[in-house]
């Protein structure tokens, strides 16, 4: 039992999620979009219509958050933080990576064992070619994408993960998450949720409800 829990706790897939703020927030928002409406629906003290309305509203809010997070935070704040770090910090502290994607790949290689790393570095990239010293067209290797410093680091037992760069990206991610989920999402959801609820028939149009109320009035009185 305990060894099973230990295996889960130290599994690589879980570690990949926890080492990345992006996947953490995405998963947490998804869980919120299930948990909060779920608890509203099982509340016996509220009537059925109110429950359905509140649960749908909460679900739509969390779905908006997820959408905003995926479209705004990752491309803008994460890439922005990567570029900022490359600009203001010394190359020795942040390495010489051409893109965020390349740095993420580097971090994945750092997590694997030395033997796996060596094997991966010498793998050919399908469909990508280079011209060698004798002028022949040959397949490009994974290690050809990295500069000499990065390749040397990857061949060490404990490679440098360039924590300044990693931390700046995480900081950008946290700032973006806070801005996206706590400031931007409530504004967007305010404009989006009510029309969506009206479309689903859970909220009445103001004009329609005024008309309905006036129809209920006893005009003979």
């Amino acid at each position, binding site marked *: 039992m305990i060894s099973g829990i230990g295996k889960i706790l130290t599994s690589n897939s879980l570690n990949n999620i926890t080492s990345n703020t992006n996947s953490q*927030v995405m998963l947490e928002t998804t869980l919120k979009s299930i948990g909060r409406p779920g608890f509203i629906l099982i509340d016996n003290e509220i009537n059925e219509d109110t429950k359905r309305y509140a649960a749908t509203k909460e679900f739509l809010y969390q779905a908006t958050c997820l959408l905003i997070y995926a479209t705004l935070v990752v491309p803008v704040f994460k890439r922005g933080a990567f570029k900022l770090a490359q600009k203001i910090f010394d190359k020795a502290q942040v390495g010489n990576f051409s893109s965020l994607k390349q740095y993420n790949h580097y971090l994945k290689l750092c997590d694997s064992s030395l033997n796996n790393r060596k094997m991966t570095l010498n793998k050919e990239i399908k469909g990508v070619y280079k011209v060698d010293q004798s002028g022949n067209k040959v397949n490009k290797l994974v290690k050809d994408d990295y500069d000499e410093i990065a390749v040397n680091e990857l061949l060490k037992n404990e490679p440098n993960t360039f*924590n300044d*760069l990693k931390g700046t990206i995480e900081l950008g991610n946290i700032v973006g998450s806070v801005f996206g989920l706590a400031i931007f999402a409530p504004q967007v959801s305010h404009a989006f949720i009510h029309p969506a609820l009206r479309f689903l028939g859970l909220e009445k149009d103001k004009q329609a409800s005024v008309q309905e109320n006036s129809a209920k009035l006893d005009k003979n009185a």
Partner: protein
Amino acid sequence: MKATIVEKLRQTAHKLGINNKPTYVVMAIAAVKGICRPTFTMMDKKEDPKTKKYTAIREGLTELIAIPVYWGLGELSAKVAKKVLPPELHKKGAKNAMFIGVCVAALLVIPGLCSAAIKPIMGMFYHDKDSKSKTSASVLDIKSESPKLEIKDNSYNNLPIIKRPSIQNFTSRTEYGMKVGGV
């Protein structure tokens, strides 16, 4: 000045790069949400002031509950993982356990606590108003059916009963208004 800011940013980034706890981001989001969501609600000019105040307190309370739960459950899970796992796996396992703790908090503990605790707390704020509204509602709960009019029995001796409408059937206001002809 610029160099100091850059250096401070580098130091913060370095610490985050070494150890970015899963609780940091969720606590930061909850803290800013706890301030911004009620503020935005109170700034809404279209909403009724009482409704605004109620919604803002409710939103603030939700995040106020969320912050210590995220922190507490995250740290607790990490401690349990450290006890269960061998020392060489402490670092990796504790961080992953902390993340599981945060997920459990988001999925079950916070929504459960909010639905259990917010109602009584809100009841403390709105206790008097609620009881007043309940009594006034019960006082006003009057059945507004019009009086049922009986058809007068006009049977006489053994003659067959012919139910004829009396003069009472032709008026809905039997007890008041101008009466003509002394009926």
